[in-house]
Every structure is written in C-alpha cells, then in structure tokens.
C-alpha cells in the first residue's frame, strides 16, 4: 500500500488575491494584473502544500467562487443564479441556471492546473464538479428532458477532463449529493448510475479518478458508493461515528481510497497521532493500493492562517502513518 497526502480541494484565498478580486471588480486593476496576482498566489499555495509534506497538490481552486462557478461561466448554456446555502455550511454558491444547451467551448480549469504542474515534481490533482451534484444543485430552465440535459452535461465535463489529462495525474470528481441525506435511496441510486455512466465515457483507469463525497457519510450511503468504478474520497469528520461504522462494516477493496481525516470546517486542534491510530483500526477492512490522507472537504470554511495549520497537521499525519503502517 502506497501512502499519500493532499487536500481535498480548495485552499482559502491569500489576502493579496482577495484584494485583487475587489480591485478587479472596481476597475482598479486590469485582467492581466489580476492574472499575475492569481498566478503568484497559486504558486504560494502550492509551495505551502509541498512544505507541509503533501505528495498530491491542487491549485487551491483559488479563482473558484464555488464548486460550479468556473463551469457556470465557462460552459455554454449556463448562468450564475441566486445564492443558495451549500449543504449545511455558512457558505453559499450561485445556483447554476441552465438557460441553453450545455456545451464545452474550451478548457475551463486547465491553466491553473498547468501552473502547478510546471512548478512541482509531486502528483497534481485536478478537480471538477460531478454531473449528478451539478444536476441536483442547478436549476433547469431549458431542457424538456433530464436525460438530454445529463447527456450534454456529461459530455461537457468529459471534454474538460480530456483537456486536463496532460497536466493532472489524478482527476477528482466532486459528488457531495451522492451522500445528501435530503435525497432518498432511489435518487442516490440514480446518482450512482449517472456517475458510472460519466466514468465509462471518460474511459480512464480506475486509479486515476477519485469520486469525492463529503459532509454526510453513513453506512448505507457508503455501501452504495462502493458500486462506483473509481477511487473514492470520504469525509470521516462530519459524521464521525457513522463514517467509522461505514468503513468497518463495508471495508474497501478498490484501488484508491482518500480519507478525509482532517476536519476542514473546524479549527479545533488536531492530533495527528490519534488520527493515525484511528485509521490503523481500519486496516483490517480496507486494502487499497493507494491510501491518501486528506482534509474532510474543501478548506474554504476556515481562515487562511488556520488552513495553514491544518495543512501542517495533514503532513504530520502522513509522516506518522509512514512510520506506523509501512
């Protein structure tokens, strides 16, 4: 079993980037000046990840306003709509509003991933929203048929993944709706079908794609996730007792398992040794080729300085696990 560490998705924006966003919207700086700040901040966050011992890096998704926005703005047929609470967080996304046929017109996220690729020897992970969560959290004002909507959405996301393949070693597909407790079992089963259809159209090896869920894991929902033909990221911190039971009851025999062991929504101090001790208890029931230690979800829910501490704790989890597990 190979061990890795990497954050689940985003990292909080550095102060310079927050200011650059404001300056851009007020016309105080040009697009070019903004892009320079963005590039510097991506490198800053990549260096932070390397320094903390991450072996899988992300761009920090620093330009993303929410999970969907780059795609709402970058694909044809979509607009950014009203603000909606993102699950149970004090964080809001703009509802993707479908107003025309969804079409991929060019790379949406490739630049930021390439920026990291050019500056690290570690593995690089790209993130995209998954088709099922995109469907559930958007508003359709165009398609008469949901099947047609899904077909176009999957095709657009597939094209984006294709454009990322030269730059990213791993593709993470975010699908928090697959474990949304507000959805019934039949809806979640449909979600699994949709994601598997997407995976089959991608045609990528199972060890290059991770389906990421977060916030609401329990044994029943976890058992359904095991039908996905890809690696898996699960949040062990939002519902810790249920998640613990899920892993112990159902195990994992796929190729890549990413465990969200660091709570990305809290700043309560983490104890890396205790985390490793807890994960060790799963080793009888899980046997992935690659085990990734990760944050439970995106790090946007905490301030920048606290995210740096979380990153450091994650690095110490990996170091401790390498001693204890290998």
């Amino acid at each position: 079993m190979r061990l890795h560490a990497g954050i689940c998705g985003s990292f909080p924006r550095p102060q310079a980037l927050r200011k650059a966003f404001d300056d851009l919207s007020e016309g105080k700086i040009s697009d070019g000046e903004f892009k320079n700040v963005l590039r510097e901040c991506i490198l800053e966050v990549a260096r932070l990840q390397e320094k903390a011992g991450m072996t899988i890096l992300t761009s920090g998704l620093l330009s993303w306003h929410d999970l969907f926005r780059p795609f709402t703005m970058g694909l044809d047929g979509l607009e950014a709509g009203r603000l909606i609470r993102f699950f149970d967080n004090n964080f809001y996304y703009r509802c993707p509003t479908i107003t025309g046929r969804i079409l991929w017109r060019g790379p949406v996220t490739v630049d930021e991933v390439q920026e990291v690729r050019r500056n690290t020897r570690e593995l690089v992970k790209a993130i995209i929203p998954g088709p099922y969560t995109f469907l559930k959290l958007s508003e359709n004002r165009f398609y008469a048929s949901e099947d047609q909507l899904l077909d176009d959405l999957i095709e657009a996301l597939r094209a984006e993944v294709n454009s990322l393949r030269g730059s990213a070693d791993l593709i993470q597909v975010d699908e928090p709706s697959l474990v949304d407790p507000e959805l019934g079992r039949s809806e979640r089963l449909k979600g699994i079908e949709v994601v598997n259809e997407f995976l089959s159209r991608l045609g990528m090896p199972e060890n290059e794609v991770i389906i990421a869920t977060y916030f609401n894991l329990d044994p029943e929902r976890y058992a359904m996730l095991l039908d996905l033909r890809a690696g898996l990221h699960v949040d062990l911190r939002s519902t810790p007792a249920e998640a613990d039971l899920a892993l112990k009851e159902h195990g994992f025999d796929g190729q890549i398992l990413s465990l969200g062991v660091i709570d990305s929504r809290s700043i309560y101090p983490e104890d890396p040794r205790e985390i490793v001790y807890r994960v060790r208890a799963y080793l009888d029931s899980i046997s992935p080729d690659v085990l990734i230690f990760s944050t439970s979800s995106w790090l946007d829910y905490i301030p920048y300085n606290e995210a740096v501490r979380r990153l450091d704790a994650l690095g110490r989890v990996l170091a401790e696990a390498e001693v204890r597990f290998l």
Partner: protein
Amino acid sequence: MSCKLPDKLRTTVVGSYPYFPEALKAFQLRRRGDRGPEYEALVREATKKAIMDYLDAGIDILADGEQRREDMAVFFAEELDGFEISEPVRIFDNVYFRKPVIAGRIGWRREILVEDWKYASSISAGKPVKVTITGPYTMYSWSFDKFYGSMRNAILDLAESFRKEIEALVRAGATFIQIDEPALSTRAEKMDVLIAGEAFEIMFKGLSNVKRITHICYGKLERLFPEILDFPIDQYDFETKNRNYELLSLLREYSFDKELALGVIDVHSSRIEPVEEIMEGIARGLELLPPEKLYIKPDCGLKRLKREVALEKLRNMVEAARRAREMLA
C-alpha cells in the same frame, strides 16, 4: 408611561432594522476600537431613528433595531469572555466575514444590552421594547471552537452567560425577551435540538412576568418538532410567509396552543405586500389560533431591506392587523 396595546393580533418585529448612516459610521469607529462618546452618540441616534420608524408604522411591541450590531454573532462574541475574532472566512464569492472563535471558557463579563434597552424604552412612547439575544446554539454554530471540543459544554456555558444577562434585563424592567436561533433549523439533528432545549431551560426557567420568546427561521423547521414544544417558551416566532404558511399545518398536527408570532412579510423581497395579501396571511393564522395568541410580524429581521421599503411593508402590516381586528369585532 405605558401604552395600552390591542388585546388581539398585536403587531411586532423580529428585531433588526435597516442600518442608518449613523450606525454604519459607528461600525467604522468600533472596528478601529473607538467606543468613545462619538460612537455612543451615533448608536443612540441610529436607535432613535429606528424606534421612530417603528412608531411611525404603528408597531405595538418594538425592538431597538439592533443598530449597534454589525453582525448578530460577532456582537455578542465581543462582549463575552472566551471569544476571539478570526481572520476572514468566505461566505460567498469574494465576500468574507470575521467569525468568532471560542478560545477560552465562555463567561458573562458585564451587562450587554441593558443600557440600550433602557434608552429605547425611554423613547418608545410607552410601548414595550423587546430584547433580542442571539441564542447559544446559533452562537456556537457560527463560531469556531478551539477550546471546548464539545458542543454541549460550550452551549451550556453560553446559556449560563445569557441567563445572567436576562436576569439583568428583567431587573431593569424588560418584559419581552427573545432568543434568536436561526442556526437551529439549518442542521438540527435530534441531539442538537435536545441540547438547545437544555440551554432554553437554563436561560428561561423560573422567570416570571416575562414573555419568553424564540425566533427561528429559514431552514428545516419541521425537524425541530415535537421536542421544541417542550421548551420553556411562551411565544414561538417563526418565518411562515416565505414558505406559504405550510408550517401552520405542522403546528396543527401537534395541536399547537402557545402564542405564535406569525411571519406575514417576506424580508428577502423588496415587493411591498398589499394589505389584502397580509390579511390573507393573518386569516391563515386565525384558522390555527385565537387572535389573542397570534402576533403579527415580518418573517425575520428587516436589515437587508432599504429603509423606505421596510417602513412601507410595516405600515401595510399594521393596517392589515387593524382591519383584521375590526373584522373580528
């Protein structure tokens, strides 16, 4: 001086009112750590204007408009022991706020709201002024905890602190105390509801001659039932207009017979509800409860509306309640 209130369909507000320029200037001073005479004068002027608008609209039970509070959680965090304020955290797009951090044992340091309540009451033309407090569950949910590691322990310490504040308010003469718990309906696992119930016991148990109120809004209110009905609360203040009064069916299911503050104004829309539309909402409430137990108010605080819109909405609300009373008579 006291003012005789109608005995049926009394009108009230949830708490906040659009910020006056004086309040915005006071926030700037506060952020710089300046809470001197100029700051106090600005807050008083803004409070006076909010009270005057509530009186102008004809509201029966007022609030101070929360002109001192830039944020409902940060304000109390700055006044209690045990809290720090974090670096910025994103809420949406590129908009950030500084979230409270629980960094030590939470405790009551000094009176927080008493002077504001006394001032508001002195200019309220004899009408009662309701005090609003951000509840323990919401304070905890909207803070980071790096001290307790236990939601229950932190919430109970918050409740003990607010009990001291409530006792100070009651000693000063306050008779309407409202605990705002908007976070309770966003998550609300059963365990959370039970912990919130323990907190209400601490804050409200044994208080006499006080109307004990809770305001909860925008979430899965249905998840709070039936446990919430056992809380020591006299009046439940809910957002109902925004969800087309669907909550009333649930209340009927549980044979709800306490006082209900019925939301009849959508605070997220600048559309002015016509009097007749508000009267229809009141009629829905009257299908559940007698008019003596029904209070008429907006769904939530008004601070996100423009002042002119808020005032016009309130005027129509008061007129609707007046006409409904006439019809009942």
